[in-house]
């Protein structure tokens, strides 16, 4: 047995700290919560307000633009149609809105942090272990404080999703920027390019395929969080799965499961396509 007198628990201090946050800084979290909620509701009302065929067309245009393959484009349309046939349209749009919101915030956080990590060894040394923690810490551990700070519903679900899904985007942005040919950057410098100009004109365009691979991973990981997110009150396909489990309704759970898989396949193919088209022009340069 480990000696009892060496025992020290961080339980008390952590609980006190969270309580202090809730009491003293509740308004900050309310403001963040409000902003996130309004944004996600806006996306959701747009997706659910559009006629179903319009959404399908938007997806097909995206697929065509990213891959230039007729079969893939047709398959994207068929799969979305299938979602409607299974009676999952509204739920899928709710889940999609949640995913889009989490992805947008992930990009806003992930890309700049990735750039900083690539530029600064100290930042990278600090960020990488934090990313490891974010990816391995069981999500329920941060769901509880998120619930206390932001209440039930979509907002804590989005935040938990971001914590889980943003690391690959940061890692791959960092990698992409560092992999840019040093000589090309040197040439841009030699011709008088400023750091900002080189970042936007040379480094980011050349890192785009890698960054897109990171975005793809982020979306996939975000989708894997939908069921967990539904446990804290986010509606959508995840809720349906949860419902199916709770009532032993295997069919219901499977239907919703298929919906999640279809959404994953669509988003995966489309984002992968974007990564590849860019890569084609920039390879063996």
């Amino acid at each position, binding site marked *: 047995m480990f000696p009892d007198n060496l025992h020290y628990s961080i339980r008390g201090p952590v609980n006190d700290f969270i309580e202090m946050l809730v009491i003293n800084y509740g308004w900050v979290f309310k403001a963040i919560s409000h902003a996130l909620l309004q944004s996600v509701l806006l996306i959701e009302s747009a997706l659910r307000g559009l006629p179903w065929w319009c959404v399908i067309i938007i997806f097909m245009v995206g697929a065509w633009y990213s891959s230039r393959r007729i079969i893939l484009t047709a398959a994207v349309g068929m799969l979305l149609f299938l979602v409607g046939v299974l009676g999952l349209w509204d739920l899928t749009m709710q889940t999609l809105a949640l995913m889009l919101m989490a992805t947008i915030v992930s990009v806003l956080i992930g890309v700049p942090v990735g750039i900083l990590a690539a530029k600064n060894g100290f930042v990278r040394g600090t960020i990488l272990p934090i990313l490891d923690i974010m990816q391995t810490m069981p999500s329920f551990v941060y769901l509880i404080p998120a619930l206390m700070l932001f209440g039930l519903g979509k907002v804590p679900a989005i935040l938990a999703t971001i914590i889980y899904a943003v690391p690959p985007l940061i890692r791959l942005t960092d990698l992409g920027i560092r992999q840019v*040919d040093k*000589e*090309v950057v*040197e*040439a*841009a*410098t*030699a*011709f*008088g*390019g*400023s750091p900002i*100009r080189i970042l936007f004109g*040379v480094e980011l*365009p*050349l890192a785009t395929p890698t960054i897109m691979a990171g975005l793809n991973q982020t979306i996939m990981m975000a989708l894997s969080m939908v069921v967990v997110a539904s446990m804290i009150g986010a509606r959508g396909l995840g809720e349906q799965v949860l419902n199916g489990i709770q009532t032993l309704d295997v069919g219901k759970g499977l239907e919703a499961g298929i919906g999640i898989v279809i959404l994953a396949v669509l988003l995966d193919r489309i984002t992968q396509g974007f990564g590849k088209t860019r890569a084609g*022009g*920039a*390879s*063996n*340069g």
Partner: protein
Amino acid sequence: MGKIEIRNVFKIFGHQEDKALELARQGLGKEEILSQSGCSVGLNNVSMTIDPGKIFVIMGLSGSGKSTLVRHLNRLIEPSSGEVLFDGKNILDLSPKELRKFRTHHISMVFQSFALMPHRTVLQNVIYGQRVRGTARQQAREIGQQWIDAVNLSGYENKYPHELSGGMRQRVGLARALAADTDVILMDEAFSALDPLIRAEMQDQLLELQTKLSKTIVFITHDLEEALRIGSEIAILKDGELVQVGKPADILNNPANDYVARFVERRPVGVGAK
């Protein structure tokens, strides 16, 4: 204009820069400094004057510090100690903004592995310097087109670098440097990656352009044949130290030491007899 003076430049790579610098000032060689301080010496007390309007060749084997030296001229590398003067002004005193202005207006560069931007077309690559400088798009395109024509690449403006052969890519690199309209062009082993025939062709083209433009060209090479062919003046570097500077004939007839003499003897027969 475009007169460059390098005064007592030292460059040390490693963690104990001060100690190594002190040893170098005492006149120790590369090996001794490495064993005593763990630092490697890039440049050891190099001073030279590069006159405007000529092709100045810096020659040396790999590891002699020639690529390091040329990067001091546009401050891609900062010296550990010493001065680099351009038309009498020390470029080490320039602020980052002044330095960028200096690079866009006075000094451009051609790289050994071309270093073209793979996501930009030939024309976009060529006008990069002009665009950075702030030239309007239309005007920059005209300038770019003119230099693309000058290096015989007409018709390839809208191709991407990966669609071109090695020789053509380096023509783009050359056009990019020329289009920047600077007094000085640095060429770091610019033709070393090309095969012999294309290389000779590029050397001819450079000489031809030089007679028309009379820019200051600082040309780095490890190849004596090339140095003798295009250089008005040649500087030979060994282990970061300047061994000899002179006209091609001086180098051939009066080698400063055994090292240069060995170089010259190895020369294929019949080359360099200008």
